[in-house]
């Protein structure tokens, strides 16, 4: 049998995997901070949309991707402030605020996009972050294509995950976050400002989610469209749980999701398998559930104070 098609098949899937995983991973790593601090944000979808729009519009107007990214970050911070204000200061139910934020994200980006772009008749695409071919490494057969021909925002996840792990486990701030989500009263009694810590954690979360959203327009597709996030915020929420609230776990979970998403696209493109394409589409979701079941031994508990406003 000829091996070459199989290798190309695998290479094609694996090269797509990391890209597909990246936006989810950004949002999930962020959400880990928030959930570890006890705040559940199901509004990630909205945050990502706003990030995508902010990133797009500034990058488009200024012609500068970095400015776009900064704008996305700013939008993430703003989203975080709003979300925190309602969930931490006002102590409103986190899930409701999250649901509302999804609607707000959909609404505000839709309106702004229509007012400023859709009806302008301008050419709307921008130049995305180009793939960087790592010298020599990218020439390695197979691996080169899979690992060393991505753009900067994809590579950045290699920095993001260890960095997030470091902050969570090796800094005083990370320690505060983990305590505040587990036993906020205990943290309070040693002088940690629970609410302020949560504010910061939420802002980290929304900022990273916004970057994940911006990734879609600055480093993946090259244009904003309404609803571009397409459920990635929800997948990120699942990835956080699936990855056991750890950044490396989230990386594994989002790569797993990415690989099966890429696989299903590839299988559809092969066209000669007799499985209805809807079953292929469902594949990444079914696999996630199956793997989750397979991981029964590893009973990672959610942070105890998750979803509970303090005082």
């Amino acid at each position, binding site marked *: 049998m000829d091996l070459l098609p199989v290798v190309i098949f695998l290479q094609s899937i694996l090269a797509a995997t990391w890209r597909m995983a990246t936006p989810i991973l950004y949002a999930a790593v962020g959400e880990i901070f928030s959930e570890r601090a006890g705040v559940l944000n199901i509004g990630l979808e909205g945050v990502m949309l706003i990030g995508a729009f902010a990133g797009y519009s500034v990058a488009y107007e200024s012609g500068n991707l970095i400015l776009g990214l900064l704008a996305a970050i700013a939008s993430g911070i703003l989203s975080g402030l709003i979300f925190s204000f309602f969930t931490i200061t006002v102590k409103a139910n986190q899930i409701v605020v999250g649901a509302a934020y999804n609607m707000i994200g959909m609404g505000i980006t839709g309106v702004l996009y229509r007012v400023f772009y859709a*009806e302008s008749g301008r050419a709307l695409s921008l130049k995305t972050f180009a793939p960087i071919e790592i010298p020599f490494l990218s020439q390695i057969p197979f691996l080169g294509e899979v690992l060393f021909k991505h753009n900067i925002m994809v590579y950045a996840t290699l920095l993001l995950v260890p960095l997030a792990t470091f902050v969570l486990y090796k800094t005083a701030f990370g320690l505060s976050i983990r305590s505040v989500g587990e036993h906020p009263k205990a943290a309070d009694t040693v002088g940690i400002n629970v609410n302020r810590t949560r504010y910061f954690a939420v802002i980290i979360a929304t900022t990273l989610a916004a970057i994940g959203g911006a990734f879609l327009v600055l480093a993946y597709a090259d244009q904003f469209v*309404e609803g571009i996030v397409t459920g990635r915020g929800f997948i990120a929420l699942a990835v956080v749980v699936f990855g056991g609230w750890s950044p490396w776990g989230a990386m594994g979970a989002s790569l797993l999701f990415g690989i099966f998403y890429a696989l299903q696209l590839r299988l559809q493109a092969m066209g000669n398998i007799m499985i209805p394409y809807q079953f292929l589409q469902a594949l990444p979701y079914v696999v996630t559930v199956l793997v989750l079941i397979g991981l029964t031994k590893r009973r990672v508990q959610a942070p105890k104070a998750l979803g509970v406003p303090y005082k």
Partner: protein
Amino acid sequence: GGQQATEAPKAEEPTKAAEAPKAEEPTKAAEPAAEVKFKAGLLAPGPVNDGGWNQTAYEGLKKIEAELGAEISYVETEQSPAAFEKALRDYASQGYQFILAHGNEYTDAAVTVAPDYPNTFFFLSSSRFFDPKVPNVVGLNTDSSQPCYVFGYVAAKMGKGAGLIGGMEIPPIAEAFTGFINGAKAVNPDFPVKVTYLGNWTDTAAAKEAAISYVDGGADVLLGNADFATQGVFQAMAEKKVMGFSMFGDNTDKAPESILINYLSDYGEGLLEIASQVKDGTFKPTSNYEFGLKDEKVMWLVYNEKAATPVPADLRKEIEGVIAKIASGEINTLAK
């Protein structure tokens, strides 16, 4: 005219409005049309700025506004059948004479509502509906399979394999793809053409990935028909430097070297004729409407001269012939 204006609110009481004689009246009332506000409404199943399916309808509506001085309005309906009927009634009861329901998912709702509003015409896009029992519901089909037949023809002449990326499996999409496949097979029965559905209309990233996946698998011609998400296909064409086509608009700037042919359509041009008859009260449908390459003002093809490998002149000649045959009906682009 005055008569009609006072009549419109009454349409809320459909039983009365449905009485036979009144259905005739618009014809008579047509002469002093100046005072009658002609109103045209659109039900779109998605955002009207999608650069694709919904936008063609919206632009058509704007054409009616510009040319006929109509008052226009659109609503992006929830994808729930509960919403369809209500939206249709809302327009009809406000005295809209021309309602375009942009997709044949609205068929049930239109057929249910139409008898209650005999002075309103309900047009269904991508539909071949016509039933003399409900004469004010009319299907309008822009046959995308025809330009796509040409695309397939060109693809098989110039490429090694083609990948088609659709949003969801609905007739306008599936028929377009059937046309493409038929066109390709007409050149080379063994020419590989595969279809991928994304399951949504918004995931540009997944569309791009699906397109790349084709290229990795050896295809060198791409066609996206997935609304918003199509943007990702254009981007993949440009990045991977393969050939491709564009539907419903000129997208040359998105993949200047890749796009060989743009299929442009002006749905408004097709609607205009009908709408002006509706406005005048002379519209008497006897069948559904079918727009194709024969209607040169409604759909036409534009070559991209700047493409890396523009369609060669001799092939263009051939295509002229193909188009003529399609227009004359000699070629059935939807043949099984």
